[in-house]
């Protein structure tokens, strides 16, 4: 389709991407690092894939395929939100940003939304199909469920995605523009331990950002995965434990991301102020550490409800503590250039997981070394 038929944001995005690619190629050392990081992440993904328990996964998919209506509706909801949410965000952006003042025909916006929606829909259908084929490759005889599962995924996602696209096109720009409401980020109760910090506003800021994301639905696709992960015929305590663990993990992940992004925003905001790094670190660590402590407690309860082995009960607090410390160290280190923070964290985790696989005692040593290195580098930033 010719670019003049589409909204100019398409051309702008393409130009931006091209410029970014050129700039990246002009920095070969950084590009090599990013490429190696992606390769490490891909290697980790393949490593995890080859060790996935194929039979239980196949059994879960087969069980879902036996209830085509339930699975189909769940997948339709997934498709609906996956297509609708980014389209609404884009539409809000076009109606609020500097694009709003330009004489651009609404037909170009509509065509752009349709194109993006169709591409998104195709992407999720393709991704779902690839996931199913990858799961099928893990087991010997997938024929009894594969065809049905692929059909349900195709029909569910397509119908939901199409409705999402139509919904996004129908909904008025004025009503869909904001998902934030007044009071949306107001905490239900005070947390005095946070308020006693040297800079209480930082912890408060992290908390508000977390609350906003959680109350806005958080990573809703994780909720869907949680729903699909509940097996049939599960006992009530196990079900409670599974749901509790799912909620804890979703909340913890959101809180860590919000805390990391807030650290970067706060660092930029206070870059020209006499804020000592030590004070910044202490103030910005309080909320994530509190979250990790709460997640440890609720997660332990969830494991007890599921009658998890003792090893899990010991490992869970260590995992939470190790994760939060690494998350914080990376966030402080890259606070001025947070673009690759998530990737850096993924690479560190991959390295630690690899070390644990090769020789378990090496993992905590590597973790401590990475922590020390990130902290040292973070302190050097003026």
């Amino acid at each position, binding site marked *: 389709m010719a670019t003049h038929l589409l909204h100019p944001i398409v051309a702008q995005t393409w130009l931006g991407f091209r410029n970014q690619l050129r700039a990246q190629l002009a920095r070969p050392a950084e590009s090599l690092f990013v490429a190696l990081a992606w390769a490490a992440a891909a290697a980790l993904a393949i490593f995890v894939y080859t060790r996935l328990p194929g039979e239980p996964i196949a059994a879960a998919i087969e069980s879902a395929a036996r209830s085509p209506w339930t699975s189909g509706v769940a997948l339709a909801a997934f498709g609906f939100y996956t297509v609708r949410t980014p389209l609404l965000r884009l539409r809000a952006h076009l109606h609020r940003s500097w694009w709003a003042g330009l004489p651009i025909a609404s037909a170009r916006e509509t065509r752009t939304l349709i194109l993006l929606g169709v591409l998104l829909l195709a992407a999720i259908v393709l991704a779902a199909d690839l996931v199913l084929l990858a799961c099928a490759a893990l087991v010997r005889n997938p024929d009894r469920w594969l065809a049905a599962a692929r059909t349900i995924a195709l029909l569910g996602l397509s119908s939901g995605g199409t409705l999402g696209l139509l919904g996004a096109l129908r909904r008025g720009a004025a009503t869909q523009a904001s998902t934030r409401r007044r009071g949306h980020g107001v905490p239900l109760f005070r947390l005095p331990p946070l308020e006693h910090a040297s800079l209480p*506003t930082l912890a408060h800021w992290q908390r508000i950002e977390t609350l*906003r994301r959680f109350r806005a639905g958080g990573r809703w696709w994780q909720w869907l995965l949680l729903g699909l992960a509940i097996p049939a015929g599960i006992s009530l305590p196990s079900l409670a434990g599974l749901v509790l663990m799912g909620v804890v993990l979703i909340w913890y992940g959101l809180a860590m991301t919000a805390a990391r992004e807030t650290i970067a925003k706060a660092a930029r905001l206070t*870059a020209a102020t*006499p*804020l000592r790094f030590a004070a910044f670190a202490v103030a910005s660590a309080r909320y994530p550490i509190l979250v990790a402590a709460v997640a440890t407690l609720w997660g332990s309860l969830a494991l007890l409800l599921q009658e998890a082995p003792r090893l899990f009960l010991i490992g869970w607090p260590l995992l939470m503590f190790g994760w939060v410390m690494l998350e914080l160290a990376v966030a402080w280190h890259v606070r001025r250039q947070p673009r690759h923070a998530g990737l850096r964290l993924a690479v560190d985790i991959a390295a630690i997981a690899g070390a644990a696989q090769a020789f378990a005692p090496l993992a905590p040593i590597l973790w401590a070394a990475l922590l020390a290195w990130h902290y040292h580098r973070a302190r050097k930033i*003026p």
Partner: protein
Amino acid sequence: MSHALLIENLGHAYGDTPVLRGVDMQLAPGDFMALIGPNGSGKTTLLRALSGILLPQQGKILIDGVDMRGDPVGAKGRLGMAIDPELLPGALTGRQCLTLFANIRGLPGVPDDSLALASTLAFMPWLDRLVEEYSLGTRQKLGILLGLVGSPPLIVLDEPMNGLDPVSAWAIKQHLVTLTRERGCAVLLATHALEVAERFITRAQLLLEGRCARHWDEPQLIAIRHDPTRSLEQAMVEALRELAA
């Protein structure tokens, strides 16, 4: 006497492109200097360097006698820089932002001065509302208020009048003049709005291609003001033409 700002031989390049080429600059307490220059002359890089956001490759910056390279926290403690409205956190209220900056400066709370200026700027109704609800002008007011918390010896503002209504712009200028005359604060104002700056400044510095190309002191500025046929804008354009010739 210690300078509020002393810059010696400051140099910086982005890749192979030099942006600052041996800049020297001094501000005494009570000075109100306009930093002027065409786009791309190095003003923003200079401000980023002197506020400690960017580490220059060459030269020295002393804020109120404290070396920015040797003791960045100490130097930043003597510096107040207005915050870019885009950096303000939408999830916090204006009061929370002011409290954060007051805490960083070791003050027990938001100073009365800041609240008085907020009142003059008609900012009080916005003080306890979320920043994301602010208009550009209201964000600009908060950015300036944050830079002025604690009235540090050196105040740096980059195009502070953008988006401000005339009454607020006037109040800010009067407040800055009061700070320089009564408290001995030095103000460095980077601006293109020369007609706005001309009435209030005591010195002006033209930056061109990363160098200090021309300087006007107070007697010269007074002479320009008293001559109805001249203006600082005209003087700058003439200087640019001379330098280009």
